[in-house]
């Protein structure tokens, strides 16, 4: 492979790669750095590429390893991350004015329920063990095959299946207990609360029913509801969506809270 071929392949993969690393790290800066470092590393090791996988899989392998190194010393988040961060946001007098300013001035400042669902899954999936989170994202969002994931994670097919099965089971259990979009008893109404703030003229029930997952919630097929939730992530590029700036600001806020929250727990 020539450097030109690598550059072309890398540029094709870059949007997905950047979104994938963002969803693992929850950090814009780390996502940008890791993507850039992945290209440098791939260029340096270009002679080692032996066409045993696609170039895209190879690039994702390099980036995944860099992301794993980056996250090794960091604690995993908790499944009630959004409750913790909501309390902190309400106690922070600057938080909502900042969001309103983004909404009023940015071309990517719209609040959309679907984008918040993607944001929410990104945050909650950080409560999974890292390998499980990576497997779920690679398979269900970035549509890699199991064999390709074994190459990216340097593990067996059996373990990839284990990570996938476990991550899905945990996500189903968490969202079934929390998400009021799919369970009337769910404790989290953040979508409707934020939609009420940013889109006060909208009827939430009408907007909610535009989302397939919420519409089919009563049918109770939890596996299918998770698939629909993951489909939402597949369809959204967190760096260029209608509300990307708003959601990225929210994600950065949550990351800073959770990093401190983990710190507080250790003291």
């Amino acid at each position, binding site marked *: 492979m020539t450097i030109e071929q690598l550059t072309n392949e890398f540029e094709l993969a870059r949007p997905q790669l950047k979104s994938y690393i963002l969803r693992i790290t929850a950090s814009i800066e780390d996502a940008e750095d890791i993507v850039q470092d992945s290209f440098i590393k791939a260029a340096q090791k270009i002679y080692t590429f032996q066409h045993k996988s696609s170039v895209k899989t190879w690039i994702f392998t390099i980036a995944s390893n860099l992301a794993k190194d980056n996250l090794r010393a960091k604690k995993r988040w908790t499944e009630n991350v959004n409750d913790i961060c909501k309390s902190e946001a309400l106690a922070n007098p600057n938080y909502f004015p900042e969001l309103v300013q983004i909404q009023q001035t940015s071309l990517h400042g719209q609040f959309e329920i679907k984008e918040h669902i993607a944001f929410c899954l990104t945050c909650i999936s950080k409560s999974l063990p890292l390998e499980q989170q990576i497997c779920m994202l690679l398979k269900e969002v970035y549509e890699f095959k*199991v064999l390709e994931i074994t190459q990216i994670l340097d593990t*067996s097919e*059996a*373990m990839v*299946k*284990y990570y*996938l*099965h*476990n991550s899905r*089971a*945990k996500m189903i*259990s968490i969202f079934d207990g929390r998400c009021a979009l799919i369970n009337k008893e769910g404790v989290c109404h953040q979508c409707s609360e934020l939609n009420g703030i940013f889109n006060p003229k909208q009827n939430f029930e009408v907007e909610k029913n535009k989302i397939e997952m919420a519409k089919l919630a009563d049918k109770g097929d939890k596996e299918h509801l998770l698939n629909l939730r993951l489909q939402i992530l597949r369809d959204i590029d967190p760096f260029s969506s209608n509300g990307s700036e708003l959601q990225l600001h929210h994600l950065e806020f949550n990351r800073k809270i959770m990093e401190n929250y983990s710190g507080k727990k250790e003291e």
Partner: protein
Amino acid sequence: MTNLESDGKALTIKKTFSRETAISIDIQADKSILWALLTDASDYQRWNSTVISIDGTITQGGKIQLKSTLDPKRVFKLSVKEMEVGNKLVWGDSMGKRIYTLKSVGNGQTNFSMHEKIGGPIFPLFAKMIPSFDQSFEQFASDLKKEAEAICNAI
């Protein structure tokens, strides 16, 4: 324990100063999946209906606190006594120990066996107060088989 068939049926041998229960079953799943299930304390509650909760980490020398449906009001404080990665796990306390063993038996199958021996000089004094493990062992093995085979067949 001899005469143990891989049929998922528990076998108990009672003696004056001890009691042993064992079970063996063949599971259509890779050994690594079974090992992962047996060593992730936080996940037991999801797939194993005999476990109410396990706190702690299942690592060599690690301490765990187990609540079982065998005696829901009691917390068993156990330590991990032996871990041979992928093959053998032993946990227990001063009263006894439970041994989990995994062996590949070909055709993508793994033999899972579980053995627990409790006893000691004062065992006869409270032997009648300890419930039979048979049903719990059979349920444990059945749950493990169901979960591991579901993982293998999921994709």
